[in-house]
């Protein structure tokens, strides 16, 4: 297990990490999410001693990391680091020279093992190819091979999916799953929620220098608020409990869920577009880009909120008591409704 305990780090007077604690176990894929510049790379570089915390400690397999030459060598053999851009990582002219670079430096080169790694990554026959003649995807695999050749117990990957196309992303997901099968502990930073969900066992969100989320499942709306890439669409579901006043604005669809909600709409004289399976169809339309108002019986609000977190759908809560609304008057209806909803959303996340 790798553990970070209350790690602080600043860079040019800017505090990047402000007391980060986390751990990665073997046979576990931990996903580190966060915006560009949130300090993901800085955090990851503490895991194999590339950076030294100003305060706090890093503990690997029960031993606190020390920063003398010998301890670092041991640490870096244990924890491999795959950098975001393979061009920054590949140092040698040919594939073979680059993959044996690490083992040669530690004096633990095992050609048979390395050949097997190349085979597994689909790089057989590439040994004598020049690295700068490879495609982006091939380079990425060479970079991974170079790290695996050191036979680490843990593998850190910094944004392996940045700038990669759909096929490349699937390839990387496949490699990650294979490594997990082999029993390696992994920590992977990314800002792609779909990739994260496809490979992750546990999800951390780094924001403002702190881990603000650490759980085995991940909430879509929280992810979106933290600047993580999800399925970007114009659509959203505006969730309105049946006893709230109804929001203004243009909606492509009105969906209804639950008997009280149906009664309410009837009373208002509104004919809903979606009557059956209201929640699910509302979600789907929103994923497709539509704005949907979902009027829902109050008792079922929690169900909707829970379900929404599973799908790449933006859910916005609109809640405003009927008489409160009547007291304040019409003129600031839309505005305050919006900010009220925003507030509800915020508190929901934390």
């Amino acid at each position: 297990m790798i553990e970070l305990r209350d790690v602080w780090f600043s860079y040019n007077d800017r505090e990047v990490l402000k007391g980060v604690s986390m751990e990665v176990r073997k046979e576990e894929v931990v996903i580190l999410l966060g915006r560009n510049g949130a300090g993901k790379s800085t955090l990851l570089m503490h895991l194999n001693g590339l950076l030294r915390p100003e305060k706090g400690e890093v503990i690997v397999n029960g031993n606190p990391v020390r920063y003398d030459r010998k301890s670092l060598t041991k640490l870096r053999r244990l924890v491999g680091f795959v950098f975001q851009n393979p061009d920054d990582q590949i140092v040698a002219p040919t594939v073979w020279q680059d993959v044996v670079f690490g083992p040669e430096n530690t004096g633990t080169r095992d050609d048979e093992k390395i050949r097997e790694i190349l085979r597994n990554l689909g790089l057989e026959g590439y040994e004598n190819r020049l690295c700068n003649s490879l495609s982006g995807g091939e380079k990425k695999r060479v970079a991974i091979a170079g790290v695996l050749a050191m036979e680490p117990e843990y593998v850190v990957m910094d944004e392996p999916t940045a700038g990669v196309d759909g096929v490349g992303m699937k390839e990387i997901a496949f490699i990650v799953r294979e490594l997990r099968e082999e029993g390696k502990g992994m920590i992977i930073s990314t800002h792609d929620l779909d990739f994260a969900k496809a490979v992750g066992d546990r999800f951390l969100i780094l924001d403002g220098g702190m881990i603000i989320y650490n759980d085995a499942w991940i909430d879509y709306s929280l992810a979106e608020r933290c600047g993580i890439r999800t399925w970007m669409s114009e659509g959203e579901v505006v969730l309105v409990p049946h006893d709230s006043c109804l929001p203004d604005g243009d909606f492509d669809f009105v969906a209804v869920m639950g008997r009280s909600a149906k009664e309410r709409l009837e009373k208002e004289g509104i004919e809903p577009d979606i009557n059956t399976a209201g929640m699910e169809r509302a979600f789907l339309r929103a994923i497709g880009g539509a704005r949907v108002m979902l009027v829902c019986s109050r008792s079922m609000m929690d169900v909707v909120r829970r379900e929404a977190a599973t799908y790449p759908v933006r859910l916005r809560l609109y809640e405003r008591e009927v008489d409160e609304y009547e007291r304040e008057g019409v003129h600031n209806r839309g505005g305050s409704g919006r900010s009220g909803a925003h507030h509800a959303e915020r508190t929901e996340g934390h």
Partner: protein
Amino acid sequence: MHRTIEEIQLKSKKVVTGAANVYLVMVSFILIYIFNSVSVFAITLMMFSLLSLHSSGMDYLRLMKLPALFIIPALMVIAFITPGEELFWIFTEEGVNLAFKTFFRTYASLSIMVYLITTTSVPEILFALKKLRLPEFVVEMMSLIYRTIQIFLDELIRLERSADSRLGFSGKKNMLKTSALLAHSMFVKSMERAEKLNMAMESRCYSGKIPEPSSSSSGVGYVLLVVTVIAASGVIL
């Protein structure tokens, strides 16, 4: 982890800004080299140290320590080879005096240079040189080289980091091999960079003009003050 000079310069508190700094530094250099006396050196060292300590604090002292490895042995040689009366051990009195003077000249000059580099950005320096009639072509090449250096240093830092994580710097032999490999990577990147730079310039209709930075000079009062003090000390002392 030390801050780079560019980072120090970005954060420093400047009493004089822009091209004015370059003129201040040039006039100061010329003055102290004309007067060439220990007292002028001492006063210059003091003034520029004050200015630099104000703007960049401890970073200034760190930069002033750098050349000691060159200066100390060189000063000892001077004290030894210069003919004159033996003072102590192998050193002569004239030698020690000359070394003393050289020491002050070096540190006075150094304080001027360090002041310049911790307060003035390279584009500002280039702009001032252009105003001082350095040929436009030279300024253009200097600007392009500077931009290339910016990119290459970033790339080198990333390469070093990843080589380090694969233990490329453990032991002297590995270190030498790794450095050669990194140099090779940088060479390959240079070739690609030349291609990219060319395209970048072409796509924006490059016709030989490098724009001036938008910064303006301020603090001319301080410039006059410093120059006057140096000149006065040279004349009076």
